[in-house]
């Protein structure tokens, strides 16, 4: 009866997992970020020169990139979750999905470009 190699799963669990993992990642990265910026670097990263120097470290630049991608994904999934609660029609949901994808990709490209640009100043 249940020849269920491929089980019917809604889109729910996948996106939820993505939201959960990106969220967990954010908590970890933010913790590192706060510790580094506020405890190790006394006074915080403030001036342009400081920022540029900060991004010279490839580990930090990599971490910032991961942070950028997770935070964008998490924020958009979260907003989409709230919109889902408002019971959009299927057509509306399709538009929300497209919009979220476009905004997400745009934000990530913009962020990465910014990261590379700033890093290249050094």
């Amino acid at each position, binding site marked *: 009866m249940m020849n269920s190699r491929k089980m019917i799963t809604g889109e729910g669990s996948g996106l939820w997992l993505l939201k*959960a993992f990106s969220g*967990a990642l954010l908590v970890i990265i933010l913790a590192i970020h706060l510790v580094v910026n*506020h405890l190790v670097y006394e006074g915080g990263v403030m*001036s342009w020169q400081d920022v540029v120097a900060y991004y010279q470290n490839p580990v930090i630049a990599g971490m910032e990139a991961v942070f950028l991608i997770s935070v964008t994904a998490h924020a958009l999934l979260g*907003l989409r979750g709230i919109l889902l609660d408002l*019971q959009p029609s299927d057509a509306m949901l399709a538009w929300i999905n497209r919009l979220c994808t476009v905004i997400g990709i745009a934000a990530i490209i913009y962020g990465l470009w910014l990261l590379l*640009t700033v890093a290249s100043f050094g």
Partner: protein
Amino acid sequence: MNRIFQKPDNAIQWFDPRGRQLGYLAFILNRITGMGLALYLLLHLIMLGKLAQGPQAYNSFIETVHHPVFLFGELLVIFAALIHGLNGFRIILNSFGIGVEKHKPLFTVLMIVTLLCGIYFAVRMIAR
């Protein structure tokens, strides 16, 4: 008979804590901080664009941001991030079946951590 009381207009009721317990408060906080942080993310990304415009543009921008109003805003963001992050951590744990029975004390502990961390940052910020 056909008056369905479920509708998007009810969204305001999400934020009504009257008569509700701790878990619901967590939900309200999570939702509000989530929306706040998303807005901040947007502004933050735009703001960081100044970096690409060179040292003058960025540093003068930073000067204006040193105004106490913005510092207070930054503190709010730190608080929101702590609340949202730690509460989210709790929800993830619960969803993996961990600590479900203890979700309320867990929330209380995490919010105490939030408060302590928040106060620490606030004190440092004022000290500067």
